[in-house]
């Protein structure tokens, strides 16, 4: 086994997911199978290989847009944004009590 029940619970905690006992069992089996498959990445020698975090275009360096000037622009959508919130009291989003668990 690549992972155990405690790993699944730890990851669910990190990801703020409240899993049912059935889900914990299901994800344990499925994640274990997927991680076992993913292990094939270890077959490759990646010494001196740079990680690729983003697509860059070496053959067209001019392709990359210069970052635009950081100039404030009118953005008067606060009301529209707050109107979509589950609970808002202008100009705030309202949330339940924040306490230590």
């Amino acid at each position: 086994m690549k992972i155990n029940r405690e790993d699944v619970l730890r990851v669910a905690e990190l990801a703020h997911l409240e899993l049912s006992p059935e889900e914990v069992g299901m994800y344990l089996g499925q994640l274990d199978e997927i991680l076992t498959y993913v292990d094939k990445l270890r077959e490759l020698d990646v010494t001196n290989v740079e990680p690729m975090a983003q697509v860059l275009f070496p053959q067209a360096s001019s392709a990359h847009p210069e970052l635009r000037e950081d100039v404030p622009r009118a953005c008067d959508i606060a009301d529209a944004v707050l109107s979509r919130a589950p609970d808002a009291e202008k100009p705030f989003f309202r949330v339940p009590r924040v306490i230590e668990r």
Partner: protein
Amino acid sequence: MSAAADWTIAEVRAALLAKKVSARELTAEFYSRIEKSNSQLNAYLILSPERAYAQADRVDAALTHRDALPPLAGVPIAVKDVISTRGIRTTCGSKMLESYIPPYDATAVQRLEKAGAVILGKTNCDEFAMGSSNENSAYGPVRNPVALDRVPGGSSGGSAAVTAARLAVAALGTDTGGSIRQPGACCGVPGLMPTYGRVSRYGLIAFASSLDKIGPFALSIPDLSSVLGVIAGHDHSDSTSASVPVPNYATEIEKPVNGLRIGVPEDYFAEGLDSEVKEKLQAGITLLERLGCKRIPLKMPHTDYAIAAYYIIATAEASSNLARYDGVRYGLRSPAENLIDMYRNTRERGFGPEVKRRIMLGTYALSAGYYDAYYLRAQKVRSLIARDFSDAFLKADVIITPTAPTPAFRLGEKTSDPLQMYLADIYTVTGSLAGVPGLSVPCGKTKEGLPVGMQILAPHFDEARLLRVGRAFEKAGGFTLQRSG
């Protein structure tokens, strides 16, 4: 009037100019078709008639005043429901966003409407674009219009299905690991994943930010090119969009393919490929050779590692992107006594099983102690896969592969086995990781009548080359390729 559903973009334009039909009548014709068949296909989630008719009326007014018509005037188009539309519900196929109404339009949608397109509605998809069969939608699966007991592919299953069933002239989808090309293949319609950075993603609800792209489905290569020409190009609202000039695709695609080197990587024709798909692909390649293309055998040695690298990188990015769904600012909130429980309850109720699975996998891959072994290693393997492509493009002008290892599978066939489902993306995730553009075109059908897709890949920003090969293939009858021999 019944023929209107089969019109190409050029035919829509000609009919409007000849006053054979008004934009309003054409819009009504498509809505009437949708009303007849959507309950069966489940391809549209949300219709937007108010906005569609208002746009159609603007087109009709322009016709009356003999104003110049923009390129997509009156063309009915569907938009995948992960792309934001101002005032129109955008659910991402998720309970989390069931009642979410965006306050702004995605740039791609803005550009379509500025070009005169009529947005009919939003199409069904796998939840947050995570899936290869459309069965992960919280609103039920889409059925494949070619075979109703089959999946349409995913995640842009709804957009592929409405294009195939002619419930729109064209549709926008998104592709992260194959989500345009694979459903295109399953439903027998051309679908284009543009180069990373070619089409602005402003307003696209993020899944995996280093991989997500917006692209079109249409019934022909000229139509696909017309839509791409409108949505492509730099956008100051998306810092990852590239300022590379957009060519005139209409003229580029008609250029000859004679002498073009088509690379055929043997790694894509190995074990796991359905024999009928393989046979169709070989016939397709032979047809291209008859058109004067030169076949170049290739090796792309890291192909076999792509699914593993992809599902680590994509889920890691997803776990970060989907952290925003916490019940505070938009979407679902499940009440609780305190903040942390509210987060947890909201996410438990709002997300479906596949989304949770990917968040879990991604969170694990990024967690302390595992980051180097999984995420960093996957990114290094991504470099090796990208290098496979740059090496291949030294020898070949385009690369040709199957789009998917099998034709459309049956509904329910792979839902209990996530890994088997992931392997449906085996031929598409490579191009996604490299960031190159990929086009899937129909390449005949199996004995059972199921469409087969041929994938064409080209170097960064050379969509014109892809479309040129696709166009030559289309004109030579490749889309309806008969059995060879």
